[in-house]
């Protein structure tokens, strides 16, 4: 049911964990199914220097979490803000239709973490 890329990210998730004293934190729950993701960012000179995630959710939720961390690593904040759930799903060679909502979790957590960073630095 899942693409090879999804299974790869599920089996070998990148950047699992939590950054201590993160510059931005995004904790979101998926309103559709109740799954949860926490994403932490370390930011320097507007650039994402490090990113980590923890996720309580299905295989697609874990894979999209992992993928979003890979996509934003090293990017500047504006670029990271442009990443949507579709970007993440596409990078994983697609998700089954019933699993598209899972990618919202990863995108929402990223945007929440960036928002948190901006609020802290204003």
């Amino acid at each position: 049911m899942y693409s090879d890329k999804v299974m790869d990210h599920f089996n070998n998730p990148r950047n699992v964990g939590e950054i201590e004293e993160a510059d931005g934190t995004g904790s979101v729950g998926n309103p559709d199914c109740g799954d949860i993701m926490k994403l932490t960012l370390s930011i320097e000179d507007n650039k994402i220097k490090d990113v980590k995630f923890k996720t309580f959710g299905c295989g697609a939720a874990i894979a999209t979490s992992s993928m979003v961390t890979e996509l934003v690593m090293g990017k500047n904040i504006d670029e990271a803000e442009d990443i949507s759930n579709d970007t993440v799903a596409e990078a994983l060679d697609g998700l089954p239709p019933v699993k598209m909502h899972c990618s919202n979790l990863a995108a929402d957590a990223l945007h929440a973490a960036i928002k948190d960073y901006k609020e802290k630095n204003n």
Partner: protein
Amino acid sequence: MDKIYFDHNATTPVLDEVFDAMLPYLKEEWGNPSSIHWAGRVPKKAVEDAREKVAAFLGCSPVEIIFTSSGTESDNLGIKGLAYAKKKKGNHIITTKVEHPAVLKTCKYLEKEGFEVTYLNVDEEGMIDLGDLKESIRPETILITVMYANNETGVIFPVEEIGRIAKEHKITFHTDAVQAAGKIPIDTSSLDVDLLTISGHKLYAPKGVGALFVRRGTRLVPVIHGGHHERNRRGGTENVAGIVGLGTACEIATRDMEKERAHLEKITKRLENGIIERVPDIHINGGGSPRLMNTSNISFEFIEGESILLGLDMHQIAASSGSACTSGSLEPTHVLLAMGKTAELSHGSIRFSLGRTNTVDEVDLLIDVLPPIVERMRSMSPLYAGSNEPVVFKR
């Protein structure tokens, strides 16, 4: 790596003996059992032989067996058929919150048709309260429909007592025995049950065949209208091969019941105890109630079921989950929610349902591979205690 199947409450493989018995009716004996000519004679006899076997299995007379296309259809026929037949007597039905959708959705439909339905609660061990049942009986109650055993937790309901209560109040009693059939003995001659559903594919016969026991004198309005099949109670040319398969499977179930029960009890206990010993922070759902000896439903705290299933699938192990993420509807299973479990615990539930071909070695393999899978998922979970600021689950 050998494939391991721990999902027998979802469906079972067709036994060789069953397959062999069916085969002639897919090949040379293709006639219509309703035909009076030569082509119909053998298939007709095969259907009636199968009816006798199912009747012997359930302790009833062959005329009390109606063949259907599934457990779902039998539930529909038993419930709707009875409700419409007794509409003039009353409009109230009693069931439970933990029935299979084949019963729940049928009851929901009847609510739209003007019937009133009471859905009994279960306690945290998945058990109903007979006091609640008695209190919910009204003068206009026409039907009680309570499952024999629950498909998700394996919890066995007190159908003897329920039958007695129903009889005292002259209320018809239907039970969905799809999961009980073949696992524990069912004897309609000693139970006060009027309608009882079974399904082929849960007892080593194929999918797409079921039966409904209808006690003599119980009137039903047909749900499927058509020819004179099944004594005018269910139209449609018989699924001869499927019916033969069901009959054979019932015969085998009767023959092997004691041996299989002992085997399943042993390996399922081994599985459950092995997991209890090796994995912390788990809950045995329905563990405090009498349960089918093949079913173990376990919630793993802090993690989600689909990801556990994917981890098991890497080892070619098949099981199922009550998680919202595997449900299609994105709702966690109604059964665990009715038991008062949090959405999080429903999310993390895995059902292992064992069958006759499972072995001790397979169970031991599961017990070895499961703990690291659970640990890995927990290490990724924001809910786990290792987390700096555990996130509070809200839904």
